[in-house]
């Protein structure tokens, strides 16, 4: 078992590599005639936590979805975990990417436990990990509650429990501290630290630069679709 950070979250052995885990070169993303990202260059290396900030509509969420391989660049090239964003190989690395958007993606009719068990099954993870992940985020007692009967904050905690369970190599967080209480904010920081300590990389998009600076190694500002 590897070293532990606060809250007893287990870390994985570090992966030593000089290759950036996220590499974007002159990447543009267009929606119709509108440029959402324009000629963006960005590298995020193993062990690094990058904070991203910028005005509303600057393209921060699109950057995260691009790094999550959920959208393809309109032009330019990039790799995530060594897989090209323009090739089929990006499908093979998706299960190693953890993405927590600002809107929870839980199924409302399923309980928190069932939501996580679904992910666990897809990742071939034993169901015992579900209970421990929910316990870690303080949702052990609410595990059998349907997601649509949980508060927004509880749903966000459940999303972080999913990340704890799947131990992604690339962690992408969109406004990770919003709707969370102080305990949960500490938990988010611990998850980021665990990911980077394990040789992974994290990207945190946030308006709250001060809060993110507790874990981010460096910041970039996105303005008009590019790195300012």
């Amino acid at each position: 078992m590897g070293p532990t950070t606060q809250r007893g979250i287990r870390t994985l052995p570090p992966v030593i590599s000089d290759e950036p885990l996220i590499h974007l070169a002159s990447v543009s993303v267009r929606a119709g005639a509108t440029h959402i990202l324009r000629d963006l260059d960005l590298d995020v290396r193993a062990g690094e936590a990058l904070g991203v900030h910028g005005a509303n509509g600057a393209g921060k969420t699109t950057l995260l979805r691009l790094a999550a391989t959920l959208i393809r660049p309109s032009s330019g090239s990039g790799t995530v975990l060594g897989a090209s964003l323009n090739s089929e190989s990006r499908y093979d690395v998706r299960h190693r990417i953890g993405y927590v958007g600002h809107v929870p993606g839980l199924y409302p009719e399923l309980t928190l436990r069932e939501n996580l068990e679904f992910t666990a099954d897809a990742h071939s993870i034993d169901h015992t990990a579900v209970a421990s992940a929910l316990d870690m985020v303080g949702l052990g007692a609410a595990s059998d509650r349907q997601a649509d009967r949980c508060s927004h904050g509880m749903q966000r905690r459940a999303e972080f429990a999913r990340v704890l369970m799947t131990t992604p190599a690339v962690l992408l967080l969109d406004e990770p501290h919003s709707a969370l209480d102080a305990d949960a904010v500490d938990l988010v920081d611990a998850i980021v630290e665990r990911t980077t300590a394990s040789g992974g990389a994290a990207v945190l998009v946030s308006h709250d630069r001060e809060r993110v600076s507790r874990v981010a190694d460096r910041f970039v500002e996105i303005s008009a679709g590019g790195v300012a």
Partner: protein
Amino acid sequence: MGFFSQARLITSRDLVRERRSGEVLWVTLPFGAIALLLVPMAIGTDAPLLEQVGTGLFWAIVMLFGVLISIRQTTGETQAQRDQLALTGIDAAAIYVGRATASFVLLVIFEVVLGLVTIVLYDVPVSGWWLVPILITIVAAGLSLLGTLAASIVSTGRNAAALVPLLVAPLSIPLLIGATQALEVLDLGGSSLAWVLMMIVSTLVLAVAGVLSARPLQEI
């Protein structure tokens, strides 16, 4: 995790969600039965006429409401849910097959219950009773594949759900005509084989189209 295990996982998830929401059982199914009830009220208690139109009406209502059943989960899914599903690494084709399988199960239940209502209300003679389960199975398979494919096409577009009928109506015609004609031909002493084969071919084409287009459609 293999392809069919992934598909089974999606099917199981969709059926649990349906069991909790009860959308098909408590909303769509009663509406379908009411639609069957409204026609005799509109045209009067003309028993021979009702007997004559009963079978065709049953299939028409199955088509209309069946599409609603087969698109419900996909079109109702949020972007966040789609993102999380994609990041599980489950093959997009397995997602398609799994969703269609869940819809197939629900459609079979829907058709059986509505079929019984039709027999009671319209006094339809069940002369080709041995063929009915075959037709119910093929129609359920075809409609579930078609609805899941159409929903995947329109699910990412703004207000695109309104396009579903435009996509589904023409493509469901072979199923509708095949199902009604297969029973009618049998009643007249002919062979239904050609109609059944046409339905099977339509269903297979939909299955292949859905599997092949699943990955590109996931990224629209």
